[in-house]
């Protein structure tokens, strides 16, 4: 029995961490957040490490690894608040495209040249004014807060759990960037007027697996981001002096850090287990994906607040930049289903509530 990361997974973690530490420091994140740069250069760098094709079979130019490996990557990206379309293009998009044998797309995604965004919000629960309807081979309507504002194609889900593929260049499609609180990753609005769409999947299980994959990766991203916030809080508290002592020696501050650790450490095992279930325990995968997403949303929010408080006034400033992590955790919470909605799905999966 071995519960945890394999040696290969630890090596993967180390090599991605090294790249991010050296090449994607906070200064670079700031440039992207301010709009002076886009994430293309980072995605290019991550492509050289094989990340876009991590879960695409080797026959199609990918690395052929599993969800737990992707969890390891996602955690690293969250830790470094790395701007990238990893969750949409590398984790979610390959699921339906592999299921429907869209080999033409897979090779491009694997090299990182093709970016596929994800518009699932309207299938999970459309907000006022949003919603998308299929008519024949066309889609019309509006998708909000679509993952990746720079994608070449989008996978759009409808309420009956069908998944369609549209090209960003398709006639009748209008894409508007949507600024959000999390400026490390881009989102957009898609306005569709009879846009030609490829039906990729009619199987609700494919839709669910795609969504679950995204949620597990969000949970891992939050795990990494929250761990970084805890680490920064401990370092800061060990340096900052007040009343002639470092503030880390005050019980009030120590207990805040202990609380963060006590809440976060079991999350690590939960996220690993949810990733493993996506690979090897199909019966538990849905329930665990929902819980990983919801639980990390709650714990992440607590850590984000507490770490900021440990930093005192400096935590509130742009100078320290802690807010990039705070907002990243916030975005992972709201996108692909807020915790209340996701827990209700977990209840449905377990038949704790009537399917009606």
């Amino acid at each position, binding site marked *: *029995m*071995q519960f945890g990361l394999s040696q290969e997974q630890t090596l993967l973690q180390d090599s991605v961490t090294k790249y991010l530490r050296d090449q994607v420091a906070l200064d670079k994140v700031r440039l992207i957040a301010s709009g002076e740069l886009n994430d293309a250069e980072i995605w290019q760098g991550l492509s050289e490490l094989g990340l876009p094709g991590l879960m695409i079979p080797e026959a199609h130019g990918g690395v052929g690894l599993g969800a*737990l490996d992707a969890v390891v990557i996602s955690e690293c990206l969250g830790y470094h608040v790395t701007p990238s379309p990893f969750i949409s293009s590398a984790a979610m998009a390959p699921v339906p495209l592999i299921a429907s044998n869209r080999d033409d797309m897979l090779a491009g995604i694997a090299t990182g040249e093709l970016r596929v965004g994800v518009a699932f919000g309207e299938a999970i629960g459309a907000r006022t004014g949003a919603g998308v309807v299929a008519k024949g081979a066309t889609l019309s309507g509006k998708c909000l807060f679509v993952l990746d504002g720079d994608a070449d194609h989008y996978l759009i889900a409808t309420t009956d759990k069908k998944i369609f593929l549209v090209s960003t260049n398709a006639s009748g499609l209008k894409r508007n960037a949507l600024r959000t609180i999390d400026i490390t990753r881009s989102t957009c609005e898609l306005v569709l007027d009879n846009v030609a769409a490829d039906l990729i999947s009619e199987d609700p299980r494919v839709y669910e697996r795609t969504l679950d994959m995204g949620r597990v990766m969000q949970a891992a991203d939050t795990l990494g981001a929250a761990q970084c916030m805890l680490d920064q809080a401990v370092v800061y*508290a060990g340096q900052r002096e007040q009343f002639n002592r470092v503030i880390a020696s005050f*019980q009030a501050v*120590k*207990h805040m850090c*202990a609380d963060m650790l*006590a809440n976060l450490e079991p999350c690590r095992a939960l996220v690993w287990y949810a990733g493993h279930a996506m690979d090897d325990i199909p019966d538990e995968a849905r329930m*665990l994906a929902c819980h990983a997403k919801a639980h990390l949303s709650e714990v992440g929010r607590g850590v984000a607040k507490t770490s900021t408080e440990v930093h005192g006034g400096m935590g509130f400033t742009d100078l320290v930049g802690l807010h990039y992590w705070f907002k990243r955790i916030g975005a992972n919470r709201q996108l692909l289903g807020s915790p209340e909605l996701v827990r209700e799905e977990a209840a449905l999966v377990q038949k704790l509530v009537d399917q009606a």
Partner: protein
Amino acid sequence: MDLSYGTEYIAFREEVKGFISKNKDKQPKAGAEPGNPELLAWQALLIANGFHSRTIPKAYGGYGAEPDIIKPRIISEEFSKAQINTGFSGQGISMLTPVLLEMGTEAQKQQFIKPTIHGEMVWCQGYSEPGAGSDLASLTTKAELDGDEWVINGQKIWTSTAHLADWIFCLVRTEPEAPKHQGISFLLFDMNTPGIEIRPLVDMTGKANFNEVFFTDVRVPKHQIVGNRGQGWLVANAILGHERGSLAPPDAAQSRLDGVTRLMNSETIGGEKVIDNPVYRDRLLKLQGSVLAQKANDMRLLSARINQDQSAKLAGMIVKLTGTELRHEIEGLAIDVMGEIGLAYGDNPYLRGNGSWQYQYMYYLGLIIGGGTSQIQKNIISERGLGMPKEPKIEAK
């Protein structure tokens, strides 16, 4: 990630199942008092087959198996699945026996371990005092050597099962001049020794789960000490580490959460099942997320023990804190699910589940405090886990 226990354990699981199906009718009846012959016979049967005291050497009355982390787990899984009595527990078995094996003399091992694990000798623990709780090392119950005997004077508190115990393992101050951690010794003595008075301490549950124990010129043979004079703190710490992990295991939390789910399916409010109320349901699902996280953490810890992996150190430090707090919340949800029925207690005819939800809700508040309070746990986590500095020391009065 490999969650299978491996093929060599398949046969062992079958052996456990075989034992259960053959012997389950020999189980003692629920509620039998300690000393009941049925209980003692069942205990002997469990030990003879290696399902209790598995790794304790045969010479000391145990089964004498090689240490193995997975087999006890399989035993516990199968016994729990079949709801079979797992035999005696208690502080003599869980805390004193490991200490004697580690630090006791050969004579002490011979004298105490066999009757203890067979349930013939019940122990209580004399650690806390009215003035020594979180700061346990400041304890003042003193033992002075008079010829071949220790003479003990002082008071202990929070002594669970003192009224049932045959013997006590007790921390006393033997070196008043030494620094506080180095002046303590670990003594064993008979609870029938003259000079011991036990007063039950009724707690918020309405029961006397604990006692106060008073010592007045209690005379104890000199050799009934574990370790050397002044080493008692080392011995006590070894045991406390063992106790912390076992107070609120995640599997028990899962089983209580399943109980809340059943309760929410059977209780109704104005004709509607509680499980159909989305507010209550969300509270249940929130707790389920925490239980799943703690169960995964527990698997990680098991794996770390098997593979001697040091990377899960922090994951182990938090289990007392998070486990007891979570149990308290689970029991509290059940009370809220019952609304005013959640107030019922004692012989109230509307009581659900024998009042266990109300009892455990209070009992787990006790466990949040006992065995190192949540606040002491947070000191340990932040100082030993995160490397944060201790508070500056105040000079002793």
